[in-house]
């Protein structure tokens, strides 16, 4: 009895919480008359894909999504490459310098992009990288790299050092032992960190909106902002754009939920 009551409460609470996400999809499927109907309809009466067709044909949403994919994949690769060495050293070497480094990494992890974007803009302007996707990739990596280092360090720390030492006794170099033993054992960590870095970069807004003013280079966050930033917005199309943009995020999250959650709690508290 008590258990079914708890289940019922849980269902109501999560339903209530997720209503905004549902409303995004529901609004995207409505025709504009129904969208502005009073009272609003909870379930679209005549679901239509008109808004989706419109945003792809008229607003070139495919270009925005492609740019987002390009930026976030590049950020992910660059971040994992740069994070590996640092995370491994931080997990294995104990010294005062490593402690200093770790604190430095943790501090840079929390710097909010809106407070860093002014100097970034001026620096990239000086080295003539403004209006290039490279600038956005380099800037976004400052946000994802510290996070990846902290999290990969935890993954490496979980690989028993004895395994590496055994390999080295058998004549493998330190690098070889790392590549053959540690890296494969930490692959789950890589999948989780890679996914999270990708998602963080995919949702990044401040850097692209400030560093890119050519529409053809902008990612979907900036495109979506153009839809809803004005006082009056065409909500059906805006919600269709938002749905197309976040559905991959939601799918990835559902597939990897457990691992993402345990990874993120470890990243924040360890």
């Amino acid at each position: 009895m008590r258990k079914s009551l708890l289940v019922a409460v849980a269902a109501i609470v999560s339903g209530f919480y997720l209503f905004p996400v549902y409303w995004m999809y529901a609004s995207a499927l409505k025709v504009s008359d129904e969208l502005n109907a009073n009272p609003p309809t909870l379930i679209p009466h005549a679901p239509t894909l008109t808004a989706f067709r419109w945003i792809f044909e008229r607003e070139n949403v495919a270009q925005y999504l492609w740019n987002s994919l390009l930026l976030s994949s590049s950020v992910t690769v660059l971040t994992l490459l740069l994070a590996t060495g640092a995370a491994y050293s931080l997990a294995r070497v104990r010294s005062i310098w490593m402690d200093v480094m770790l604190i430095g990494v943790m501090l840079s992890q929390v710097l909010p992009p809106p407070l860093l974007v002014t100097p970034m803009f001026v620096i990239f302007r000086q080295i003539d990288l403004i209006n290039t996707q490279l600038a956005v990739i380099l800037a976004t990596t400052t946000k994802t790299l510290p996070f990846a280092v902290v999290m990969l360090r935890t993954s490496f720390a979980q690989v028993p050092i004895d395994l590496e030492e055994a390999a080295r006794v058998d004549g493998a170099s330190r690098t070889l032992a790392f590549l053959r033993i540690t890296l494969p054992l930490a692959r789950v960590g890589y999948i989780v960190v890679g996914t999270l870095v990708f998602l963080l970069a995919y949702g990044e807004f401040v850097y692209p909106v400030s560093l890119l003013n050519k529409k053809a280079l902008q990612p979907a966050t900036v495109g979506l902002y153009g839809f809803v930033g004005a006082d009056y917005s065409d909500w059906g199309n805006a919600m269709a754009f938002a749905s197309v943009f976040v559905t991959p995020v939601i799918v990835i999250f559902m597939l990897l939920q457990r691992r993402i959650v345990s990874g993120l709690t470890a990243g924040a508290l360890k």
Partner: protein
Amino acid sequence: MVGFTALYLAFFVGYPVVYNLIMSVQDVTLGNIRYLVRPFVGLDNYAKLIADPLFTMVLQNTLLFVIGNVALQFLGGLALALFFQQPFPGASFFRGLILAGWILPPLVIGAVWKWLLASDNGVINYALHSLGLTSGPIYWLSDPATSLIGVTMANVWFGVPFNMILLSAGLAGVPRDIYEAAALDGAGPVRRFFAITLPLLRPTIYALLALSTIYTMRAFDLIWTMTHGGPVDSSNIFPVWAYRLSFELFDFGGGAAVSTMMLVVVFIVALIYVRSVRAEQLS
């Protein structure tokens, strides 16, 4: 191996922080943005900002926004964490559903909430009206009296799952037998919560409050989408002001000065965070 990463972070994080400080004591305009040497103006940028009538307003908004968000996210997260700690079928499934809100890009959350809060056809106004709580539409985001509340609602929605999951992890670390012993000694659930749960969660709570405070600085995306800091600066907080100074008024020196002031605050809070996390590791 650690070298590349250290260099990257030093160049792309350390350098901008230092450069920000330098720009905050210079006169930086669109005309001299490309030069390294610019007129030194001492603390003029800071003095101008503090003398600006906007300063008091932005300070007040920022304090209200940060305290309101951190408190509400924490209370909501704690309530959910305690609820989902009860053993019942599907507890982790439902908790996982709620977590979905936290993985969404803030920009999308801003867009969806702007639509939910729309004054004419927004579903929130409709719900309030049909429950008999309001007589007419509330102009959530276009009324200076309510705009800060509107963006706070969206940001609390965004932050609650993060608070919930960190507190859940903390709760899972509290040994069961302490509760059982306390229950045997006759302590009720409320007493057990205040005497056992809260003290044992303290390191988690400190780390969480510090992180939440810093994350509210990132609410920029949300506010920028929903209100642009307006109307008449009623939802303008420091990160938004810094951005506006630099990218709308091209007063890069002023933008850098606001950023520097906020970075000092972030650093102090971040040190509290790092300390509490490291204290937890050692214990």
